[in-house]
């Protein structure tokens, strides 16, 4: 195709999780040695620990990062859309996710059926969100990124990346 189509649009991340936005902050996500690019495949065993998320931006700005799975429990029947995996707030610009406040601890991908997309969304905060105001969502399934952004006045995201993950087959299976 001569025209470049954004991989986020092709993978329907824009549309199902977030709305069309203009990326303004550079975000680099890596699980150990593997860097995450849009649509790459990461094994759940490699993604069990939280990734290293480096963001650009000015030191005064604060950012919110969240990770969801829009294909829970199965891509053909995503009735638990979305499944929340991670929320970190008050990340200073130019640093990484460990410098922020963890609102929902990290949970690695555990796709039961099919190939799931895991979306990492970065928002820019208008001001520091105090712990009392940042009410963590009650439960992980049935999360809605747009509603969360609306409730905390986060606006459109500034950076989005997604990767695919699939349940690893158990080791005893005989391979032809």
């Amino acid at each position: 195709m001569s025209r470049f189509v954004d991989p986020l649009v092709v993978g329907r991340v824009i549309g199902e999780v977030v709305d069309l936005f203009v990326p303004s902050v550079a975000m680099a996500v890596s699980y150990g040695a593997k860097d995450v690019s849009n649509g790459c495949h990461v094994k759940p065993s490699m993604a069990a620990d939280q990734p290293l998320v480096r963001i650009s931006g000015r030191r005064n700005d604060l950012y919110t990062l969240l990770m969801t799975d829009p294909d829970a429990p199965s891509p053909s029947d995503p009735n638990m859309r979305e499944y929340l995996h991670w929320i970190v707030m008050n990340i200073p610009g130019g640093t990484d996710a460990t410098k922020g406040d963890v609102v929902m601890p990290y949970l690695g991908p555990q796709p039961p059926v099919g190939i799931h997309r895991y979306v990492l969304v970065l928002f820019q905060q208008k001001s520091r969100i105090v712990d009392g105001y940042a009410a963590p969502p009650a439960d992980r399934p049935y999360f809605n990124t747009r509603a969360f952004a609306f409730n905390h006045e986060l606006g459109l995201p500034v950076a989005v990346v997604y990767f695919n993950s699939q349940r690893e087959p158990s080791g005893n299976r005989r391979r032809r």
Partner: protein
Amino acid sequence: MAAFASTSPSPAISASTWRMESLRAALPALRTSPSAAIGAGLRPRKQAVRLGASASPFLRSSFVSTSSASSSASPSSISSAVSASLAFSYTSSFSVESSFEHRLFGTDVHGRILAMRHGKRIPRLGRPADQRKALLRGLTTQLLKHGRIKTTKPRAKAMRKWVDKMITLAKDGSLHKRRQALGYIYEKHIVHALFAEVPDRYGERPGGYTRIIPTFPRRGDNAPMAYIELV
């Protein structure tokens, strides 16, 4: 006729004056009578099917010359039909090759003979027809079960038609369509789940129920891979 000229034993007879009667006497007897041959001349499609059934190298040159003559001439001309039927009846006396072997000539809708693949849009996927059907059945079953699968790009593109067909059957929802779907998809609980949820999910969508997203090539053989998913 050139083949017979090259194998002519007697040098006394000149190669340029072969007579039709001596030729007919030398070769095995015709199965079709001339009246039936004329009737066959008015049905060019049936002739072409018999021609494609076998290909003996011994008479290949005569096939090409007579078939080109018959396809270019109008079907109503009797002489070309008779000569064409002679060649076709020769083919009928030879055995038909098995369906797995490569046919020398295919035919198009009008009964013309084609040696090339021009305009044929079926993806062959490097397999004979029964294995191809089984592969596509398995892939559509897995896609309907998992919702998103990763496979090679040509297979994903070939699958689209069958997945759309299955979803169209489920949209109709009648018993006959359900049984047709059960005859194609390998697992029956998937068919029942499909018929239950398709009207809600794809009720308004007029076709195009799948999406193909290319991805990185496979490491072992650099095959272009793609995700195919239900929209």
